């Protein structure tokens, strides 16, 4: 009896943990309140972590042409730099040992870059795979992420504030008749990438009440984007065409317009709706801050009688 009591006393305190199923279908037991998170996708998971104040033990980052490192989007939106947050990997070149050296208690990667190394990473710490391009609504992805890192309450509070902000931006206008479509023009191969879900753009314009244009139906259900020939430009009917540019590559708002002109000459000139160009580093990530900026970039004079 004494032995049993002693054994019970010596048992470690039950670890606070929960089981989740990630986007790759793995059931993972993760800490209830992770304190050392390694994020392996800078402009998706690192941005969300930064906005929700998640304690990051490391992040992936990219190499600039001058050899310096930067955390795409997290730097533009939240001023995050390496080594202020330690480097976990160069984007898409994960070294599990480098991740292990950061002593994480949770690793969050994405399907495209991390899945093939999941077995190795799982030896280091519980590893969650997120699929940001799998066709799910950005707010759903963000909500799931917040749950993994014990920030659900903060997420809901930020969401409520964001929705209130959207009401202010709308200023009483009913924008439900307005349609929008995010598109990337690829002038090198004459194609257009049509996006159904596009991070902060989707969060902003959906919350303002706009509707995604019918052309987005070309994107398969399980994906967020599809590539079509530029000859399909005629099918892109929307009140607002959303173009993006990478300021980190010294692109300007004219860059996507020029690319569109080369891929589909004359289309933009004949396009009847509004064309807005936003900075991809701020608009693509799933964040309330970036989405709020997109909301404010929406043309003030937008008014739509009936869906285009």
């Amino acid at each position, binding site marked *: 009896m004494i032995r049993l009591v002693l054994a019970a006393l010596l048992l470690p305190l039950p670890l606070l943990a929960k089981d989740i199923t990630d986007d790759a279908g793995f059931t993972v037991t993760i800490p209830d309140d992770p304190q050392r998170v390694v994020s392996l996708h800078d402009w998706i998971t690192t941005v969300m972590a930064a906005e929700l104040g998640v304690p990051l033990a490391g992040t992936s980052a990219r190499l600039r042409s001058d050899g310096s490192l930067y955390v795409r989007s997290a730097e533009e939106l939240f001023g995050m730099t390496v080594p202020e947050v330690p480097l976990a990997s160069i984007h898409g070149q994960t070294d599990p*040992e480098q991740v292990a050296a950061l002593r994480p208690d949770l690793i969050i990667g994405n399907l495209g870059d991390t899945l093939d190394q999941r077995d*190795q990473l799982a030896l280091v710490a519980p590893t969650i795979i997120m699929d940001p391009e799998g066709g799910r609504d950005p707010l759903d992805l963000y909500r799931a992420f917040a749950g993994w890192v014990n920030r659900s309450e903060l997420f809901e509070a930020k969401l409520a504030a964001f929705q209130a902000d959207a009401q202010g931006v709308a200023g009483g206008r009913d924008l439900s008749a307005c349609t929008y479509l995010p598109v990337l023009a690829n002038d090198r191969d004459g194609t257009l990438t049509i996006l159904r879900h596009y991070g902060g753009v989707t969060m902003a314009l959906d919350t303002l009440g706009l509707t995604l244009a019918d052309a987005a139906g070309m994107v398969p259900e399980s994906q967020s984007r599809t590539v079509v020939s530029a000859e399909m430009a005629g099918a892109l009917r929307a009140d607002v065409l959303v173009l993006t540019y990478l300021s980190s590559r010294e692109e300007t708002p004219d860059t996507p317009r020029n690319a569109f002109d080369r891929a589909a000459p004359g289309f933009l000139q004949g396009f009847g709706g509004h064309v807005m160009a936003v900075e991809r580093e701020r608009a693509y990530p799933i964040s309330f801050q970036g989405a709020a900026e997109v909301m404010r970039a929406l043309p003030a004079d937008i008014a739509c009688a009936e869906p285009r």
Partner: protein
Amino acid sequence: MILRTGPFSAQVSRRFLWALPVLLAAVAALVWIAIGAGATPTTATERLSALRGEGLIGDLRRPRILVALLGGAMTAASGIILQTVSRNGLADPGLLGLSQGSVVAILIGGLVFGLGSGALVWVGLGGALAVSVLVLGLGRGTLAGGGIVLVGLAVNIVLGSVTEIVMTSGDATRFARLAVWSRGSLAGVSAGDLRLIAVWALVTVPLLLALSRHLAPLLLGHDAARGVGVDTRRLLPALVLLAAALSAPVVVVCGPISFLGLIAGYVARRLVGDAPTEVLVTGMILGGGILLLADTAGRAALAPLVVPAGLMTSVAGVVVFLLAIAADRRLNR
């Protein structure tokens, strides 16, 4: 020189007797360096523990090192068999399109039919075999000398285009996942991958060594080999099947590792001469060592940058390819 141990005897060259221990020592030194190289500094004791598979370092580095040694040896053996069968020192599973045949078959098997890695080896084997029959058939029947390499390159280009189409026809996620593997990388190697490669090595390598004594007559030409009693109608398809079976599991786990067979075969012949069994054994040790060196350098030399081993062997391979061509020219003058 004839070595005798009890009832067994084998004729070996002096060069082979010198080269074998030197190469084995070099590979052992490489293993010691590789088990110690990485983001976490290690003491000698920790390296020994890791070599026994203990601790996180052992879990992460040991499978990768063993897959590099086994996969490199198998790819090298595949190349040396193809060089003997085609009687062309430039033949290589990557250069002749066998690896790319496996890649296309694996992509279709994995993406269209959702097959797992165990089944994908068989699919990759089918792809490599189909390409080898096509290339060896066309190359031998229609072109002399380096014709087989030209046919291999042409098939490689076509299959490379098919690979690109498959990769870019999906979403961005698919492209990102396949981009690293299609360049030949050991970054994703796990203990499960090691088991898969080891099983195939256990089956194919003994077969290879058993068949290797029949390789010498093939160097004289297929007609001459038949003249000394070799049944080439059975032996040649068996060797091609074996070359494909050696290459396919490596492609499943690591992606295509180009030029390794060419480099290993060329250097092995320079070291030990033309005796096929000696070239095979030497080439396999070299292949394992080269792939381990490429992978270790790729993950540690430029850290935090990671360079796929396949890119490293391609760069080294082009240099050896040019050296081999230059050496052939000198011989033919």
